[in-house]
């Protein structure tokens, strides 16, 4: 599986190699809308990866290369791969997190699309995660459960049954392969209506458990609903382990993980008169270690840092990070392209990475005069902003991520490309990779690429970063960096590609 990728040589840069792909598209295969990946997230250890899709499903992957061979040898062998140094993941399980709903009061459809996934603290070998669509956040527990065959009941004839599974809520209704959670549900005797003549109960005994097979079961533990009037764009766990925030276009709410019936509004940007609305919240994240600090970004290109200690309703920020446009450079698109689509704290919490349409910016929370670094991602598109505006591509929300050591940053682009930049002092590293099995082929060879432009001919004359044809429908929005190693997972429509260096 490895070794197929070519090597990208950049000065002091990393050599990115292809590692794995899940859900690869065969040539000419139509992409099912529901299969498009809309969220990617590694857990804290990096041993698990979760993806969410448009169809409301959450798929979990587990790292296999480091896990005790004794237990998972079978799995590794089944995958027919030689042991290697880089992270290898295998499909673990999937479950239906959200279903399409209809809000009858507002006459609005609520899509099942997963907007964000966040991992929570593991305990008792169970994995916990939060997933959200536009309106409702759910808290999931995924755990190996023993499938118990019970027998030796007092009353029934020797007949065994499998106990403890209610699988209906979790089995995805998709044609993808998946491990069923339940196994056969074979309703045992209903003793209440049992008319069997009973004879000779002379002694009592407890049923015995005869089988210890295990199966993965995902269970929705809590549902945090009815707290958002607008679409939720972010959720983020607090370092205190008991609270999390959810942000929509105008408000940020604070929840206790254990209480789903109430939340506290901590930021409210809604003006008294909606006509005065000039700015919306686009993303929000808690500081990785200071439980009282959180940052949120806005459509006006600013990042605000707030301190929850200051007051209950944090409408006044403690720090504001924004870059002032050079006078005279303002155009019709200035406001649109300065809108921040994603922010991420670096591991230590001192730096914040923000992504707007054209650039990645790194901010030091101790310096609010301007970003400490700016990386050009889409500068080559500047002449084409008009076309991008026409087909709405200018509103695409690209995510960004940082490596665990904070040395590099990455973000997506069009034509299934993504870029990795070195952000340490003096680094000039800037690599462009394509989410295919051969991530660097565009740099090595530049073949004329046939563009599939389904029923939409407006992208004809556009070029991508490497001067190739450019297709704004094949955008790479979601990607995540492994928390401790140089490994990136990114979503190219319905496929999950993984690379390592």
């Amino acid at each position, binding site marked *: 599986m490895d070794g197929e990728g070519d090597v990208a040589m950049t000065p002091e840069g990393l050599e990115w190699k292809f590692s794995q792909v899940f859900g690869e598209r065969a040539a000419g295969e139509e992409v099912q809308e529901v299969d498009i990946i809309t969220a990617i997230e590694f857990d804290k250890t990096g041993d698990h990866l979760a993806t969410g899709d448009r169809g409301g499903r959450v798929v979990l992957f587990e790292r296999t290369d480091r896990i005790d061979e004794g237990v998972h040898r079978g799995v590794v062998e089944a995958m027919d791969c030689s042991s290697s140094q880089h992270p290898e993941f295998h499909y673990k399980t999937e479950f239906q997190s959200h279903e399409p709903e209809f809000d009858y009061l507002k006459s609005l459809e609520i899509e099942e699309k997963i907007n964000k996934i966040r991992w929570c603290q593991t305990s008792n070998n169970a994995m916990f995660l939060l997933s959200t669509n536009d309106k409702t956040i759910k808290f999931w527990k995924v755990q190996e459960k023993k499938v118990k065959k019970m027998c030796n009941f007092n009353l029934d004839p020797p007949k065994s049954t499998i106990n403890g599974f209610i699988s209906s809520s979790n089995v995805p209704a998709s044609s993808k392969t998946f491990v069923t959670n339940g196994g056969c*549900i074979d309703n045992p005797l209903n003793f209440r209506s049992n008319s069997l003549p009973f004879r000779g109960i002379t002694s009592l005994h407890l049923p015995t458990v005869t089988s210890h097979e295990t199966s993965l079961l995902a269970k929705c533990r809590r549902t945090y609903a009815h707290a958002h009037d607008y679409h939720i764009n972010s959720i983020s766990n607090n370092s205190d382990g*008991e609270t999390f925030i959810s942000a929509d276009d105008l408000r940020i709410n604070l929840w206790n993980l254990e209480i789903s019936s109430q939340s506290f509004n901590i930021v409210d940007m809604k003006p008294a008169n909606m006509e005065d609305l000039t700015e919306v919240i686009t993303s929000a994240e808690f500081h990785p270690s200071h*439980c009282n600090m959180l940052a949120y970004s806005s459509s006006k290109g600013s990042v605000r840092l707030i301190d929850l200690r200051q007051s209950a309703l944090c409408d006044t920020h403690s720090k504001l990070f924004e870059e002032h446009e050079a006078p005279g450079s303002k155009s019709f698109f200035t406001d649109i392209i300065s809108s921040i689509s994603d922010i991420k704290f670096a591991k230590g919490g001192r730096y914040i990475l923000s992504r707007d349409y054209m650039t990645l910016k790194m901010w030091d929370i101790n310096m609010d005069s301007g970003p400490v670094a700016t990386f050009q991602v889409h500068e080559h598109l500047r002449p084409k902003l008009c076309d991008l505006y026409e087909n709405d591509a200018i509103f695409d929300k690209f995510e960004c991520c940082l490596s665990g050591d904070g040395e590099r940053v990455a973000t997506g682009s069009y034509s299934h490309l993504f870029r990795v930049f070195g952000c340490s002092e003096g680094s000039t590293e800037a690599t462009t990779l394509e989410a295919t099995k051969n991530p660097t082929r565009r740099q090595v060879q530049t073949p004329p690429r046939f563009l599939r432009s389904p029923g939409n001919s407006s992208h004809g004359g556009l070029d991508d970063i490497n001067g190739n044809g450019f297709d704004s429908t094949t955008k790479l929005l979601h990607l995540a960096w492994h928390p401790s190693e140089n490994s990136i997972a990114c979503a190219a429509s319905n496929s999950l590609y993984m690379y390592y260096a």
Partner: protein
Amino acid sequence: MSMVDEPLYPIAVLIDELKNDDIQLRLNSIRKLSTIARALGEERTRKELIPFLSENNDDDDEVLLAMAEELGVFIPYVGGLEHAHVLLPPLETLCTVEETCVRDKAVESLCRIGSQMRETDLVDWFIPLVKRLAAGEWFTARVSACGLFHIAYPSAPEMLKTELRTIYSQLCQDDMPMVRRSASTNLGKFAATVEPSYLKTDVMQIFEDLTQDDQDSVRLLAVEGCAALGKLLEPQDCIAHILPVIVIFSQDKSWRVRYMVANQLYELCEAVGPEPTKTDLVPAYVRLLRDNEAEVRIAAAGKVTKFSRILSPELALQHILPCVKELSSDSSQHVRSALASVIMGMAPVLGKDATIEQLLPIFLSLLKDEFPDVRLNIISKLDQVNQVIGIDLLSQSLLPAIVELAEDRHWRVRLAIIEYIPLLASQLGVGFFDDKLGALCMQWLQDKVYSIREAAANNLKRLAEEFGPDWAMQHIIPQVLEMANNPHYLYRMTILGAISLLAPVMGLEITCSKLLPVVVTLAKDRVANIRFNVAKVLQSFIPIVEQSVMEKTVRPCLVELVEDPDVDVRFFSKQALDAIDQVMMTS
């Protein structure tokens, strides 16, 4: 043989259902665990049932919660105290599950069992369990461990005690904030069992670490620890160690910590005693009353009276009253509301002169507050201020406020004021009441909202009780009976309700002469709902009216209603007739 079968059958069902697919059946079986145990006998319960439960612990939370609760009272079924330790293993696993309420219940049950166990058994079984949990791989086990130390510690030998103290202090420095929070919450209980010499050294060190934790959620739990520890320490130690912490907390950067201090300050004052309260805590409290954060002011405002009570009137006048004045015009309605709910209590503390001079203007401004909750809170505590300044001074400003509330747009506000009317009536006296409030009480009977009409009827009853039947006969009954002819059937229904409530208070004579005729007339109402309510009211008259009246008036009326075309009317009149017959039979 069959003699044995019969009682065993239901037990066999219960046992089998412990593993049924239907959670309700499993839950039911767990709830009847004691029945199963009795049938199995003590020995088999110990050797089979309890191990069975220990193994099968990956059930739904509801089942686990029920199991944790049942096991807490299971000592008699396993053979008494000497075998109590067999209950520990299943509870130990329940202490590690991730659902908080299950863990809490398991800890509670463990504490309950542990507090009954023999000392040697505690050392042999309970303390090792605590140590295992405290060293647990997952934070859930360690969180649970914190709640068990106060049971384990007293019986431990000296060596083990030292170890337990060390383990506890490690838990307070755990990587997981959840564990530190649990350790912080349980510190007071644990400290109460620790010897005074170690209290000053080990426990205070632990406490000091917790107060400097960088997680707000841990620090604010440490605030509660202040009061608990303060009560355990000698006064001088308390002043030396606890007081500075309280003062620092009251200026903490996090409003949530200051909020906790504001809530707890009264208890903290008790812990440190009067002198330091005056010198250190009064300034701290004044700061909290003037805090930037409304939530903190709300908490502080709610404690104004409690706090003033432990101060001398001079100090209260000098330090607290100026703040109260500011708070009465606070920008947050919730602050004013919190103040309004307790400010009345300051009157007895300040005495009559100061109350009239200083407090009365504040009352009056709060009574005119634009926010109904504030006004309501003042009115609800009126009896307290009446005792100090007398009603005359108040009544002039009171009445407009009451009238305004009585006609408030929000029916909940109207409901609240109605509920205070009997209290007001008792304070204001008959004379004042007749003039001003009588009309209002009648007006509510015709409110658009059912709850208000219902409350209004109830109010009349309570007024009748307060002022006596004679007064009611003059001021309530005529008006009420007049409304029985209201063209709207819902209002007629309200009147029926009021009549049935008033009858027991008014007594036999008035009921028969005044109320009963009206009810009988309504039996001919064209609306069926009225007619069956007449049947209900007549039934309620049974204990009040005499037998002769019953036979002469009530029964014929009901007999007629039994033939009613409406099925509900027939049902209720039949029910009433049956009730009459029953009374006849017994008498």
